[in-house]
């Protein structure tokens, strides 16, 4: 069964690294991409252009994004009765303590900072896959539900 991962990321380089790393570590991951917070929310709410969007099993969310930043996206997800159960992992270049604290207080499921080097990035994606997609129990989404019940 494919695993749906939504990556919310504006950097083409990080996008490419994440895509390649998932391809290596788990061919069953289907990676959808949103390039800013507005697009991420349209995807999650299956609005225009995203009516057939899959409900993600896991969201990887950058903090600094154009139009609507990751903190706002996180707050919207975790206040939405329909979306709040989706594990949302912050994946950002920020190592600011204020960002870490703020993210956990907005109920991020966990916070990871992006490493600089390719090998370390690859190994972080492997950790995410091993932990979130192979070890923890994720909530199941039966049928096509998840958008509007």
């Amino acid at each position, binding site marked *: 069964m494919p695993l749906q991962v939504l990556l919310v990321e504006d950097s083409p380089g990080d996008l490419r690294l994440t895509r390649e790393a998932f391809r290596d570590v788990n061919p069953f991951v289907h990676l959808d991409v949103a390039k800013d917070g507005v697009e991420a929310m349209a995807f999650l709410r299956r609005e225009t252009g995203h009516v057939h969007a899959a409900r993600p099993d896991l969201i990887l969310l950058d903090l600094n994004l154009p139009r609507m930043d990751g903190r706002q996206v996180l707050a919207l997800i975790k206040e939405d009765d329909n979306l709040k159960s989706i594990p949302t992992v912050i994946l950002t270049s920020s190592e600011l303590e204020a960002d870490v604290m703020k993210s956990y207080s907005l109920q991020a499921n966990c916070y990871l900072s992006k490493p600089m080097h390719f090998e370390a990035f690859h190994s972080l994606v492997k950790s995410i896959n091993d932990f979130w997609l192979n070890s*923890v129990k994720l*909530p199941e989404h039966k049928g096509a539900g998840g958008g509007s019940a």
Partner: protein
Amino acid sequence: MALEVLLIEDSPGDVRLTQEAFRAANNGVHLHVVNDGVEAMAFLNREGGYAQAPRPDLTLLDLNMPRMDGRQVLALIKNDDGLKTIPTVILTTSTAEDDIVASYRLHANCYFSKPVQLEDFESLVKTINDFWLTTAKLPREEKPAGTTNGAGNNRAD
């Protein structure tokens, strides 16, 4: 620097397994144990005999416990401005889909069902240690030595 982990677990066997597995996985972990939800909240709020309790870097929470169960503890932690930032991992024998979804809705950071085999239990504790205590960035509370201002800890950030 020691990592403070709070294990909230009523089964003596599982407490022992967890202690032994952490000892093997990471000797920098200081594991505190409480046996039910009431005691857990006293520890987290530094009440009664827990006035000197450290703030946990990570909490491992069983669901089915006497006096106050894990669902109630989770709701209290995740609705408390002072405590909600502590990553809280559900570690339970329950594999019921209702428990999984309800836990994520209450903002559990993640959910694990306890394996039956000893080796699998050890490997799960290692997985939790490797991800939460070495890979993830944990919130770091400023801890001025000796300040325990009890409950209602309103942090101005």
